Structure formats: C-alpha cells, structure tokens
C-alpha cells in the first residue's frame, strides 16, 4: 500500500526536532531507520502530519568507550553494532544477539535507538538492554533525562518516553572479568522476531551465579528481570529447578507464534539451557 501524504523535515540538529514537536505536537513522528515506522505508514496504520528525520543529526551515531562505560548513539545502525570490534570485545552479548535482529537489508538501516523506542515485546535489543542494565539518555527542550532500561519499557510497544523527547544515547557497562552472558532464541526462520527468547547476564563465582539478570522475551508484555531467577541462582539451585520456577510465574501472551502455554514450555527449556551456558561459560546462542 502507499503512504498517505505527510510533510518531511530533515533535522540537522536536536533543536530542529524540538521545534517540530513544539509546532506539531504528537502529529510529528521521529523517523530513524524507518524499519518499523515505514511499514506502519505504508499500511496507513500511522498517518503522521510530519516526519522528522533524525538520521542527519551529528553526534547521534557512533560507539565510544569512556572508562568502563560504552556509549552507543541512538541512530547507530544494527550492522554497525554487528561489525564493531568494541562491541565484540566489551559487549559480547549485544554482538551475539544483533545477528538475530532481522535481515541484512533491515540491519543496514534499522537503528539501536529505534529498536528500543519501538519496544516490540519479541525484539532482541530491548531485552538485552534490560539484562545489561543499560541507561537510556533522553533529551527534550527541558534538558536531559536518564532512565534505566528496566524502568523504560512499560508494555507492548509502550515506553516511558515522553512525546517531546528524543532518545539520544544508550550507556552500557563493559564486560568485566567473571562476567558471563547467554542468549538463546527460538524463531521459525533466521532473522524473524523471536517466538520466545532468553537473555541473561551474571557473574560466575565458585559455581554460582551472582547478580543474575535473566530476561525472557517474545513472551510477556515487555522485558523485565526475573527476581525469582536471581534469588534461586544466588542460593545455588540447579538450572532445572530455576527454569521451572521462573517459567511458572511467567505471564505469556498468546500471539501468532504460539499460545501462552506453548511459550511457557519453550521458555522453560531456553532458561535451563541459558543457565547451563552461564555456568559453563559457554557463550554463543
């Protein structure tokens, strides 16, 4: 289908975008990679009056390390994350998970920030951001606001972003010694959204997992840390028991990829495998 008419505004800086918000309110939508927004516009599910293209705002893209922090600009594209040596060495979970995000042509254009703001419950990057304890930096005319990924996601395609805010960058901690991670996903075809997925980060100390941050995605309304997983792991429970307990308390949504009970079953086995990966330091999913 063809898009309905809209105005196009190429923002050269954040102020251009804030001006558009001031003038058009929620009739103005940010256009980043367009890989989620353009389909909805072509299908006329969204009919914005104005598209504010943020692809040319300098300083919004790039991956940098300062101390133990890695800063990823919101318009950094999926393929840039996949090709980055810094990401491969300091954020190996992202490096592994990004390969599961869509297909080559989509990864060439889709952005990290767009994926987070879009907040699809089956998307990989929001789940990884929560597992890694990322901090999101949002800017508006009122200034800068920082929020943790766990507080940012509120529901299905719903976040704490305010309509006049632009996500400008994402801050993550570089992997340190003893850090382990896991990523496992079930999908019908490589590059599809997850039917169910599990990602986790922890510290391994004497055969136990400390500070376990385990997230199931493609399952509940939005990614969140499992508190049960963390406490059972800290007390040295076996993966099979932890997986059982976490799966039991999940609240899976039935969707086109499976019904709730199927997802609970799939999640349980992915959780068990992921905990095995963490304990054995076996990383790739």
């Amino acid at each position, binding site marked *: 289908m063809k898009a309905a*008419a809209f105005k196009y505004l190429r923002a050269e800086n954040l102020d251009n975008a804030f001006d558009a918000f001031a003038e058009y309110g929620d009739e103005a939508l940010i256009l980043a990679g367009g*890989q989620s927004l*353009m*389909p909805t516009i*072509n299908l006329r599910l969204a009919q914005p009056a104005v598209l504010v293209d943020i692809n040319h705002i300098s300083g919004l893209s790039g991956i940098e390390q300062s101390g133990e922090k890695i800063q990823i600009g919101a318009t950094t594209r999926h393929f840039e994350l996949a090709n980055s040596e810094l990401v491969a060495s300091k954020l190996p979970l992202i490096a592994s998970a990004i390969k599961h995000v*869509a*297909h080559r*042509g989509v990864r060439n*254009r889709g952005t990290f920030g767009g994926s987070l703001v879009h907040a699809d419950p089956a998307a990989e990057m929001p789940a990884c951001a929560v597992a890694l304890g990322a901090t999101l930096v949002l800017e508006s005319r009122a200034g800068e606001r920082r929020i943790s990924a766990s507080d940012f996601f509120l529901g299905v395609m719903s976040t704490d972003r305010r309509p006049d805010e632009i996500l400008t960058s994402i801050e993550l901690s570089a992997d340190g010694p003893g850090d382990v991670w896991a990523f496992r996903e079930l999908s019908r075809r490589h*590059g599809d959204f997850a039917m169910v997925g599990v990602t986790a980060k922890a510290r391994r100390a004497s055969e136990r997992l400390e500070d376990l941050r385990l997230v199931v995605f493609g399952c509940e309304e939005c990614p969140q840390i499992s508190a049960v997983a963390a406490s059972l792991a800290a007390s040295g429970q076996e993966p099979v028991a932890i997986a059982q307990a976490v799966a039991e308390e999940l609240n899976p949504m039935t969707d086109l990829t499976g019904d709730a009970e199927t997802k609970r079953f799939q999640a349980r086995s992915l959780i068990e495998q992921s905990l095995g990966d963490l304990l054995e330091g076996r990383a790739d999913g």
Partner: protein
Amino acid sequence: MVETVSIRLTVNGAEVSKEVEPRQHLTDFLRNELGLTGSHIGCEHGVCGACSVRVDGRVVRGCLMLATQADGAAVETIEGIVESSEAADLAEAFIGRNALQCGFCTPGMMLTAAELLAEGKPLDRAGIRQELSGNICRCTGYQAIVDAVESVLVKKTGEV
C-alpha cells in the same frame, strides 16, 4: 497542490535532480520517475526484499526509505550493477544453476548476495541461507539460489 521537495542524488553514477512528493518511497521513485523497473515492489512493508537497492554502498529496502531521504546519496540498482559487470559472476551462476524462474525476487537476491560476496567471508550453505533470509522467492525453493551463491563464494574465497 501537492507539496514537493527537490532532491539531488546519483543513480548508478549519473546525477539526478527531481521534485518528489515526501511520501514517495525510493523504489517507486526509481521505477516511476526514472524508469528503472529492475527493483520490484512486492509487499511494501519490508518483508519480501524484492525492492532492494543499494544506498551509499549498502543494500536496503527501497520501500522503507523515502526518496527524499536519498537526497545527497549514491543509489545503485540492479541495472547499474549488471551494467558495471560487478555482478557478472553472480549473474552467470544464477543462469547456470537455474536460480531464477519468474525473476521477481532476483534483483533483490543478487544485490544481497553481492554484498555478502564483497565481504568475502567463507560461509556454509546454512550461513548463505541465513544471509538471504530476508529475501523471499516464491518459485525456486531456494536450493538453486543457494547453489549459485555458494559457487561464486567458493570461487572467491577458495573455501568450501
């Protein structure tokens, strides 16, 4: 009156200046304004890959990028890539292996395959399938397409 935006870009190396409607996507622009009908339009929402074109060196969905967004960009289409003989090996392999029937998916398949061939990393058949997973073919069953890409990749990397 329909509002338009002026854009300047290069298409297959030639400079182009045009007035476009903001809502026109890049593949419609190439097909309707420039007569470059090699890029096809299947789903118009990102799932089929038939509309693939190369923008500033990377293959993208032409249906998910606006023509106005290509202002200042270097766009290449299957026409340009075939003409420049960049994809000569690939075209020959596609024909040799019967990797196309109706040909609707072929420009997108070839552009995507050209990008992974240019990266030159050895890939097994499963890896090639993963790389082509974003391009749908309704005719061949993919086997012959994977054959064609594999044969060029093996020739290039010297690895099986």
